[in-house]
């Protein structure tokens, strides 16, 4: 038997009271692609960060090519032939591609010879792996797909034999992702060992030779990819059979609640993110927006939630909604009965340092019901919180606990309780189950469907196709700021949506 390229033995790591990795062992044969799959927070990234010397394991050993290796820092990881492409790229934005590649791997104290040598070597690498980038472009001038190539080239320039990629397709279109996988296969053929971390089953099935499944910090199984199925992996990931579809009655759409016409959004950097879209959401239906992250969905939600200005026209219940100026902020939106479960609950939906009861007022803190004279009526607020905690089964049921001390699922329940209990005409929902445990996912999905059944309009944005399929009554796909088409969930499939998400227009919508 060949010596494994990487062998981890009994790795454990905890952050304060949280144990991120429990006694994990793994063995990867050289020249293979090994997948590590698991839900958000399962401990995949922590494990790989240990392998790259970013964190120090509390216990366990790392063996590289049959030799026990200490990896106290990234320097040691690079020396051991390990390269890593992080989920969030580690590039200096105002440096050129070449400067980024050379950084940390220079030859000698002077820059000019290093850069010249790197330029030469880069050409060879580009030839060898078909990884073309312009070495003189600045990072902030090139797209994310290109930036990812720079990260891979960085690793190859450092003579990496083992390449770790952490959720590499999160920001890519399906086409770009396919291209990435072609590159990975090419690298594998050249004898490199690749570890692919993802939570997407499809990628594991398509790209890997072997796969390990992680759940709550533990390694639950390692199998040959050819000998497993998506269903089996999903079960291993979550620990029981997954309900892929939510039980719901057919929608009974009523009058249009939200009517968007020719909406355009330009971001702070002057880039147009939403390029003239039209969309209608009716009472009693859930419209799901599918798309790869970064194609304008977030901006659409933020405009509707009053978080950024836009041009075009939006009507709510037939009356127009201001798109810029003081009448277009989050307060004005709430006054028009728009509720918003934001994409990032930790940075937007909650103030992590506030008590649960303070968070229950967040955004509605000017509600007269919460006021007494010039002061806030904290007692009324706490009573309201107790009620919502009870109704939404928030655990622990402690209104005085700070938001940061709840689990992801319970944090999200606080947000959902606050927004749904407002009985809004339109509910905006962004990534409702990101980083949420499976029990809470079901609960939150049911609450959203229940609101729909009361005849409310719901606009859902999610990068999880499964979630889009299971919740939506109608699906719109966004790509590059455009809506590529609308489909009914029972009349389409993942393949067709995937094409639309990649910007390949189907038959006229």
């Amino acid at each position: 038997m060949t010596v494994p390229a990487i062998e981890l033995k009994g790795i454990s790591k905890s952050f304060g009271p949280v144990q991120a990795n429990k006694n994990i062992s793994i063995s990867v044969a050289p020249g293979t692609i090994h997948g590590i799959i698991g839900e958000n927070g399962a401990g995949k990234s922590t494990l790989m960060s240990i392998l790259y010397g970013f964190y120090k394991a509390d216990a366990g050993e790392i063996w590289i090519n049959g030799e026990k290796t200490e990896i106290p820092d990234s320097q040691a990881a690079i020396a051991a032939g390990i390269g890593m492409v992080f989920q969030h790229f580690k590039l200096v934005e105002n440096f050129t591609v070449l400067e980024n590649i050379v950084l940390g791997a220079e030859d000698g104290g002077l820059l000019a010879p290093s850069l010249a040598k790197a330029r030469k070597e880069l050409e060879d690498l580009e030839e060898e792996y078909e990884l073309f980038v312009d070495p003189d472009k600045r990072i902030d001038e090139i797209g994310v797909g290109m930036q990812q190539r720079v990260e891979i080239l960085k690793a190859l320039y450092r003579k990496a034999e083992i390449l770790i990629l952490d959720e590499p397709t999160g920001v890519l279109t399906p086409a770009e992702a396919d291209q990435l996988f072609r590159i990975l296969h090419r690298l594998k053929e050249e004898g490199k060992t690749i570890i692919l971390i993802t939570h997407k089953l499809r990628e594991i099935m398509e790209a890997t030779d072997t796969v390990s499944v992680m759940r709550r910090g533990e390694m639950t199984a390692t199998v040959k990819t050819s000998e497993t199925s998506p269903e089996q992996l999903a079960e291993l990931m979550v620990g029981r059979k997954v309900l892929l579809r939510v039980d719901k009655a057919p929608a009974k759409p009523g009058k249009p609640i939200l009517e968007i016409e020719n909406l355009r959004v330009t971001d702070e950097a002057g880039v147009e993110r939403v390029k003239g879209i039209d969309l209608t959401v009716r009472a009693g239906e859930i419209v799901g927006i599918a798309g790869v992250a970064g194609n304008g969905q977030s901006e659409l939600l933020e405009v509707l939630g009053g978080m950024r200005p836009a041009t075009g026209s939006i009507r709510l219940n037939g009356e127009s909604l201001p798109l810029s100026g003081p009448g277009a902020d989050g307060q004005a939106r709430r006054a028009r009965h728009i509720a918003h479960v934001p994409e990032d609950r930790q940075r937007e939906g909650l103030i992590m340092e506030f008590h649960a009861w303070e968070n229950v007022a967040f955004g509605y803190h000017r509600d007269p019901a919460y006021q007494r004279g010039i002061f806030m009526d904290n007692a009324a607020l706490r009573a309201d919180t107790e009620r919502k905690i009870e109704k939404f089964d928030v655990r622990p049921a402690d209104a005085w606990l700070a938001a940061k001390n709840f689990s992801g699922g319970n944090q999200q329940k606080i947000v959902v309780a606050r927004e749904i209990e407002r009985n809004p005409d339109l509910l905006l929902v962004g990534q409702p189950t990101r980083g949420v445990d499976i029990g809470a996912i079901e609960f939150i999905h049911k609450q959203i469907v229940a609101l729909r059944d009361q005849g409310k309009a719901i606009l859902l944005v999610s990068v999880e196709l499964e979630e889009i399929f299971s919740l939506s009554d109608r699906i719109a796909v966004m790509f590059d700021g455009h809506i590529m088409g609308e489909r009914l969930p029972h009349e389409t499939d993942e393949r067709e949506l995937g094409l639309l998400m990649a910007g390949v227009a189907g038959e006229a919508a």
Partner: protein
Amino acid sequence: MDKMPKWADVVLIPLISLILAAILSALVILGIGEDPVAAVKLMVSGALGSTYGWGYTLYYATNFVFTGLAVAVAFHARLFNIGGEGQAMLGGLGVAMVCLYVPWPHWSIALLAAMAAAMVFGAAWAAIPAYLQAKRGSHIVITTIMFNFIAAAFLNYMLVNVMRPEGSMDPATERFPEAVHLPTLHELLAPIGISFSKAAPANVSFLVAILACFVVWALIWRTRLGYEIRAYGHSETGALYAGISPVRITIVTMLISGALAGLMAINNVMGEAERLVLNSTEGAGFIGIAVALMGRSHPFGVFLAALLFGFLYQGGAELALWTSIPRELIVVIQALVILFTGALDNMVRMPLEKLFLSLRKGSA
């Protein structure tokens, strides 16, 4: 779970920081060949051993309550207002103009007018940095530092070229009229039979300072505005989501902060000097930083920290009088307090967090 109990965060960490600062200060005193124990004794008897000492301690503390609250309010919105010094200088200008150019029938009305003027002038001086931070992203720390220097130059100009009485060589205004004289603690306490030193400058402003603590507490923890300030301070994106305007909060918070710093002038200008002199603030604006850090930005903590610094100031003055230790010792202590409670907070915090974590593991 929180890494450690709240009381440890609120009480233990400042206490340990203070002890560290005290130990280092003692070493400094030893280093210059003096006896720290004797020095502390002298400071205690000088600052707290007589109503005269108390009168000065409370007078200084009054200054520091105002500047401390000013820094603390801004901290809640995660703004570092380092410009308390300049805002207090301008507050002094406002007070001087009110006291000099308007004939007041009674000190109480004059005090109200002076408070208003001090707050308006202080707030106005904070307004430009606030606006630039809110609208153009100019770093408020740098702009408020610059505004301190501009304030000093402006005040210098006003005192030398505009407000100086004819024939006087002193860059200062003339004395305020008798009618605006604020009652000292001696005058306030005498009617109820308590005798207090006549010479000490502590005055009715001390009561205003206590009142300000309550007002700030209510503002931060009991009003919508306070809620919004705290929310914005914790998360700017969160504020945006909730429809809390970052521009508005930044400007309003800085105006409140500047007004509080300016308000200090009723104590040092109207209550003590009874005229406006150059450098009337004597660095109190900067001590506000130490006071706010030590007081954990809570009005009650600010009050306690201000008392401590009042004690240090008066004690330090006594030290300078009776020993060869210069008053600058206080500046050193102030630096150490800022260092330990502010910049080196983690040095104290991290070992403590580990300790509490292992304690909890042990009991679980």
